[in-house]
């Protein structure tokens, strides 16, 4: 039973690793795969607020933008290496997350939602209008790709990420790392505190949980993950414009986590896969059905409605999916069973 599961997991991992060399994987397929990974990270990051803390964040894309522009400007204008940008961008994202979070700590429900929305609009307006810094709507073309280099050791070796394949593996590593961190946090004192806040803030406070502090950690963490996705995306796509971070993107990511199952980490990933792949599948499929390109989003919207109609809780409706699988809980279960039997 467990042996089977482990085998299945290994097989899945092997398939993921071998994916780029499979016969059907073209640059296009790889590109879509990398795009899915970017969104999977975004979805996991966003999930922290609505999924774990019941705070409807409609402005997540703002942090994505902050991360992306940090990377874009530093890499393009100052030639800073990706590997140095990442911690910096995450820290900046987290800082902005806390700054946004501080005044909104008292807000609940849709009032929180609209403030986060307004915040993102301000971020995007900043990116649009502060031309001296961001070049505004002219965009930032020509951002250098990610590179591995030993030049800082004085060794003349350098590998530029020029095709999709290195990004695929780097993306896979990023998704894996974020996933592991998310799972670990969910099954920890911190994660349980968040879930308690989600369920009932007042009862949580009465259990000794400092709401302000824990929400602030959630804001910072969620924003940091968004910024991480942003810097990866900036140097992968090599082009940024304020348009990339429009309001709709926040919604798209929100749709992913709800479709996947709010609060479920696996669900967030599945949601990203489904919604990004859906757009591409329709792109390929509709012409074959004789439908013009104009109908793509018509069908897209329809499918979203249908999914919610038949799976109102998303694909993985339960939260706390991982804590059930944790060693401690499994041991406890076995012990209780033994006691009952004995």
């Amino acid at each position, binding site marked *: 039973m467990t042996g089977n599961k482990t085998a299945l997991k290994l097989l899945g991992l092997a398939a993921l690793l071998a994916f780029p060399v499979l016969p059907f994987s073209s640059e296009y397929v790889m590109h879509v795969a990398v795009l899915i990974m970017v969104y999977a990270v975004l979805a996991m990051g966003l999930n922290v607020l609505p999924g774990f803390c019941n705070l409807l964040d409609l402005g997540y894309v703002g942090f994505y933008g902050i991360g992306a522009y940090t990377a874009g400007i530093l890499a393009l204008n100052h030639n800073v290496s990706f590997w140095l940008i990442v911690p910096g961008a995450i820290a900046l994202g987290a800082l902005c997350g806390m700054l946004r979070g501080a005044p909104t700590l008292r807000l609940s429900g849709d009032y929180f939602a609209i403030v986060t929305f307004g915040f993102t609009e301000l971020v995007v307006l900043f990116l649009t209008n502060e031309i001296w810094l961001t070049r505004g709507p002219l965009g930032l073309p020509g951002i250098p790709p990610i590179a591995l280099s030993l030049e800082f050791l004085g060794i003349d070796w350098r590998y530029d990420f020029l095709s999709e394949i290195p990004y695929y593996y780097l993306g896979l590593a990023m998704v894996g790392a974020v996933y592991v*961190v998310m799972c*670990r*946090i969910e099954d*920890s*004192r*911190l*994660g*349980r*505190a968040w*879930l*308690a806040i989600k*369920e*009932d803030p*007042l*009862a*949580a*406070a*009465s*259990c*000794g*949980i*400092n*709401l302000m502090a824990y929400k602030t*950690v959630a804001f910072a*963490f969620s924003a940091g993950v968004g910024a991480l996705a942003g810097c990866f995306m900036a140097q992968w796509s090599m082009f940024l414009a304020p348009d990339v971070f429009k309001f709709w993107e926040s919604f798209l990511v929100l749709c992913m986590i709800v479709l996947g199952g709010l609060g479920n980490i696996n669900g967030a990933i599945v949601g990203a896969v489904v919604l990004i792949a859906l757009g591409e599948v329709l792109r390929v499929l509709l012409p074959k059905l004789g439908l013009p390109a104009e109908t793509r989003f018509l069908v897209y919207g329809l499918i979203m409605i249908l999914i919610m109609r038949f799976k109102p809780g998303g694909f993985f409706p339960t*939260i*706390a999916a991982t*804590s059930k699988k944790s060693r*401690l*809980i499994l041991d*406890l*279960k076995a012990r*209780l069973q033994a006691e*009952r039997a004995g």
Partner: protein
Amino acid sequence: MDTILKIDGVSKRFGGLMALADVSFEVKKGRILGLIGPNGAGKTTMFNCIAGIYKPTEGRIVFDKETGPVDVGGSRPEQMTQMGVARTFQNIRLFGSLPVLDNVRIGRHCRAAQGFWGAVLRTKGQKAEERMLVEQSMEYLDFVGLKNKALDLSSSLSYGDQRRLEIARALASQPKLLLLDEPAAGMNPQETASLVDLIHAIMRKDITVVLIEHDMKLVMSICEHLVVLDHGVKIAEGGPRDIRENPEVIEAYLGRGAAHA
């Protein structure tokens, strides 16, 4: 005999409504105090003031910490819990979509320390603490008799079990003072009887209890001391016998029928 909690001239105003008006009483360490009074008298409001959910408009709430008595009026709920005051809610407020065990683990939150980095890095300390949290939580569940339901969803518990789980969750924070708000409401006599046993067991752990309850049989049988509120004002205080015969209390609260219940 030490005083663990001293309510000193506490008032609480909601807009034009005086929910509590200059109420004073003391809670003795190791004893059980009953807080009774008609609906809307301000009993739950008093709990909320003690537990840090409301800030009293006036007056002092003095709690006996290890370091000595401190005015804790206006502290935040989590600070009160940290100091050793735990409570249950009149309308059950469990974390319904979490397992029973997690409710208690969350209740134990303030007696653990690991944070973000511990969780991310899965340090030795963190793992040890997590293991300890499970063990300790199981002890509390065992104490209230819910050990076997540890992995069930808490919303799937029966009403009486949910009340017990609320108590277990409150106990998990290792309180010195436990505030129980109508723990027997909606229970039948059998369940009420086992609740009485549980309260006695709690007392044996050196925990002081303040109890709000409308079930006079329960109150009169376990409380040594009673405080009666009406319209936010303390109208009587004393032992069960005195209270039962106090005409003002009969008029406002007990009614003629209950006086001989």
